[in-house]
C-alpha cells in the first residue's frame, strides 16, 4: 500500500519536470552508451584490422611505374617536360627481385575487372578467339575447340584425363549433364555482372587457395591465352544453383570461358573483394622487342608477396632499393596494403580517443547537470517532504517516494538513450568497420553503461531525501 502510494506520488511529482530530467538522463545515457559502443566497435574493428594484417591479402606489395600511380598532376608535368619515361620490363625483373630480396615469397600479376555476363555457350561450339578485351591488337586467337572442357594441353593434364574419364563414365551424371546439354537447354546465369580478376598462375599459390573441384590454370594457359576460368566458391554457387559449375561455359565480356576449377571457401580478399565472389581468368603476358631486347609485361599490376607479416617492411625496403638501383630513383612507386591499413588503424586509434574524450566530457557535463537538477528539485521538495511527514508519512515513505520520483526520469532516460544509442551505433558501424559487414556490436558493456547512467542520477536524486528524512519535520515545513 505504502509502495503504491509512493509510486503514485512519484508519478505526480515527476510529471512537471519529466521532460527536463529525462532529457538530461537521456544525454548521460547516450553519451555513455555511445562512447562504450564506439569503444567496443573500435576495439573490435582494430582487432579485425590486426587479424587482417596477418592474412595474405595484406602481405602484398604493389609495384607500378610512378606515372601510373594516382598522382596524375605529377605525371602530366613530367610528360609536358618531355622527360623520358622508361618502359619498365617489370615482369622480367620479378624473378631477379625474388632472388635478391629474401623477404619475398613470390609474385603475381593481377588486375581486378568486372565482367558483363553474356549467354552461355554449349559444347561443340567454336569460340571466337577474342583474347583480352581492350588489347585486341596484341591478343592472339585465344579460343579453342571442344566446348565445355579445356582442350588437351590446357591446364592440369591430370584434370583433363579425369574429365575425359568422367565423360566416358555415364555413372557420373553431374559432369555429363553439364557438358551434354543442348544450347537451348542451357540456362544463362541469373546475374548480369560478375566481379573478377585477371591473374597469372602464381596468384593462387600466393593466396594459398585450395580447390574444391577441378584445377587451377597453368603457366601454359597464360602464355597461350586460354579461355579458362576458376570460380570462387560463392560465385560458383550463385551462378549455378545445381552445384555443377565445373566444366560449364560462361560468356564474359564476349569471351566464352570454361570453368576448370572451383575454389574452396576462403577468408581472403583481393583488392577489396572477397576471393569467394570472384571469377579468375588468365592474365596474359605480352612480349615484344624494344630497344634491341625482349620485353614482356602484363596488363595487370605486378604484386609481390612478403613471406610473412614481419617481413613486409624488409620486403618494401628491399624492392625499393633494387628498383632504385636498376631503374632509377622515383621511376617506380611501391604501395603496401599493410602500410595503408596500419596507417588507418593509427587514425582509428586517434579517432577513438578523440571520440572517447568528447563522450567523457559530455557524460561529465550531463551528469553534473543532472545531479545539480536532481539535488535542486529535492531541495525544493523540502517542504513537501516535511508536510508528508506531518500528515503521517514515515522517513521510509518519503525516501521511497523520492526513489520512485527519480527512477521515472532516470529509467525513461536510460531506455530512450539506449534506443537512440543502438540506432547511432548501428548507423556508425559501417564507418567504424569498413572491411567487414558481419561484426556484431557488443551490447552488454553498453547496457551496463546505460544502467550506470541511470543509477548515478537515481542515487544522487535520493541523497537529499535521505538527508531530509533525518531532519525533524518542523525544520522542513518552516518557511525558508
Amino acid at each position, binding site marked *: *500500500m*505504502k509502495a503504491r*502510494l509512493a509510486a*503514485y*506520488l512519484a508519478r*505526480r*511529482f515527476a*510529471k*512537471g519536470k519529466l521532460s527536463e530530467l529525462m532529457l538530461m538522463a537521456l544525454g548521460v545515457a547516450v553519451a555513455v552508451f555511445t562512447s562504450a559502443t564506439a569503444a567496443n566497435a573500435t576495439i573490435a574493428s582494430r582487432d579485425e584490422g590486426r587479424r587482417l594484417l596477418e592474412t595474405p591479402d595484406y602481405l602484398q606489395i604493389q609495384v607500378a611505374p610512378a606515372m601510373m600511380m594516382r598522382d596524375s598532376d605529377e605525371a602530366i608535368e613530367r610528360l609536358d617536360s618531355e622527360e623520358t619515361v622508361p618502359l619498365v620490363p617489370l615482369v622480367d625483373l620479378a624473378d631477379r627481385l625474388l632472388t635478391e630480396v629474401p623477404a619475398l615469397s613470390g609474385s603475381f600479376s593481377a588486375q581486378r575487372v568486372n565482367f558483363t555476363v553474356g549467354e552461355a555457350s554449349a559444347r561443340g561450339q567454336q569460340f571466337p578467339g577474342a583474347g583480352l578485351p581492350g588489347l585486341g591488337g596484341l591478343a592472339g586467337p585465344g579460343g579453342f575447340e571442344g566446348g565445355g572442357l579445356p582442350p588437351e594441353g590446357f591446364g592440369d593434364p591430370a584434370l583433363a584425363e579425369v574429365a575425359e574419364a568422367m565423360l566416358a563414365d555415364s555413372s557420373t551424371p553431374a559432369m555429363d549433364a553439364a557438358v551434354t546439354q543442348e544450347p537451348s537447354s542451357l540456362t544463362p546465369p541469373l546475374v548480369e555482372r560478375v566481379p573478377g580478376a585477371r591473374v597469372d598462375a602464381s596468384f593462387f599459390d600466393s593466396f594459398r587457395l585450395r580447390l574444391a573441384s577441378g584445377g587451377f590454370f597453368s603457366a601454359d594457359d597464360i602464355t597461350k591465352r586460354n579461355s579458362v576460368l576458376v570460380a570462387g566458391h560463392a560465385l560458383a554457387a550463385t551462378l549455378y544453383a545445381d552445384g555443377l559449375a565445373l566444366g560449364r561455359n560462361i560468356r564474359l565480356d564476349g569471351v566464352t570461358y570454361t570453368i576448370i576449377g572451383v575454389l574452396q571457401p576462403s577468408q581472403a580478399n583481393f583488392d577489396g573483394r572477397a576471393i569467394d565472389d570472384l571469377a579468375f581468368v588468365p592474365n596474359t603476358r605480352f612480349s615484344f622487342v624494344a630497344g634491341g631486347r625482349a620485353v614482356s609485361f602484363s596488363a595487370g599490376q605486378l604484386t609481390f608477396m612478403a613471406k610473412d607479416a614481419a617481413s613486409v617492411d624488409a620486403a618494401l625496403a628491399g624492392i625499393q632499393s633494387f628498383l632504385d638501383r636498376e631503374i632509377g630513383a622515383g621511376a617506380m612507386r611501391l604501395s603496401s596494403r599493410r602500410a595503408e591499413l596500419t596507417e588507418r588503424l593509427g587514425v582509428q586509434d586517434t579517432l577513438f580517443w578523440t571520440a572517447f574524450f568528447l563522450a567523457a566530457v559530455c557524460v561529465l557535463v550531463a551528469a553534473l547537470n543532472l545531479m545539480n537538477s536532481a539535488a535542486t528539485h529535492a531541495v525544493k521538495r523540502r*517542504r*513537501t517532504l*516535511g*508536510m*508528508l*511527514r*506531518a*500528515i*503521517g*508519512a*514515515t*522517513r521510509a*515513505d518519503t525516501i521511497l517516494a523520492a526513489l520512485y520520483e527519480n527512477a521515472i526520469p532516470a529509467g525513461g532516460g536510460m531506455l530512450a538513450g539506449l534506443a537512440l544509442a543502438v540506432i547511432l551505433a548501428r548507423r556508425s558501424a559501417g564507418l567504424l568497420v569498413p572491411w567487414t559487414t558481419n561484426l556484431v556490436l557488443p551490447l552488454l558493456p553498453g547496457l551496463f553503461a546505460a544502467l550506470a547512467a541511470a543509477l548515478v542520477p537515481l542515487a544522487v536524486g535520493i541523497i537529499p531525501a535521505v538527508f531530509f528524512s533525518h531532519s*525533524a*519535520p*518542523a*525544520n522542513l*515545513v*518552516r*518557511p525558508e
Partner: protein
Amino acid sequence: MIELKNIQKAYGDKDSAVHALAGVSLTIKRGDFVTIMGPSGSGKSTLLHILGLLDQATGGEYLLENHPVTGLSDRELSRIRNEHYGFVFQSFNLIPELTAIENVALPLRYAGETKKAALARALGLLASVGLDKRAWHYPSQLSGGEQQRVAVARAIANEPDVIMADEPTGNLPSGTGAEIMRLLTDLNAGGVSLVVVTHDDHIGAMGHTRVRLCDGLVEAVAS
C-alpha cells in the same frame, strides 16, 4: 489529553546553545481551544511543533493520554500525527503537484484507505469547506483563502483529536481570515481541540485558554 512538563528546546552546542523554550508546562484538554501569542522569537512556533510531534524537545516530558512520547519510533510518531493531529500552516503547505482533492486524500491514504475511498471522503470534506467545485484544481489555481480551506479540509481528514494551526490567517486578507477562523472554531465546537499560534490579538482573544510566551517561557495563562 496532552500534558507538557517543563519542556525545553535548545539549538546549537552546549556552550553556545540558544534556548527557544526554557521550560514550558502546558495542558491541553479534549475540546479545548488554546491560543498562543507572544512576540517574534518567543518560541510560539517551536512550542506548536513540539506539541504536534514535528520536533522533539531537548528536555522535559511530553505525555499523550498520560503516556510519554519520548522514545517512540518514527513509525509510531508518524501514526500519531496521522491519526490524532491535524496541521494548518501560515503558508498553507499544500503539495503543488497534487490537486485539492488529492491533497485532502493524502492523510487518508497514509492511514490505509484505498484511493477510491480516500477520494470520495476527500470530496465530502472539500464540500464541507465549500470547495467541492474546485476539487480538481491545483493549488496554484486557487486563491489564498481557498488554499487554506483545502489545508483545513486536509487537517480534519482523519478526524483528529487536535488541530494545530500556525498563524492560519497570517497570509490572508481579514475577511478570508475570519472565514478560516470560523471553520476552525466550528470544528472546535464539534469537540476537536484547537491550538492556534497567532500574532492577532483578536484571534488570541478567542481562545478558551490563552497562553502568552516571552523568551521561551510562559509569561501568562488566562482562561
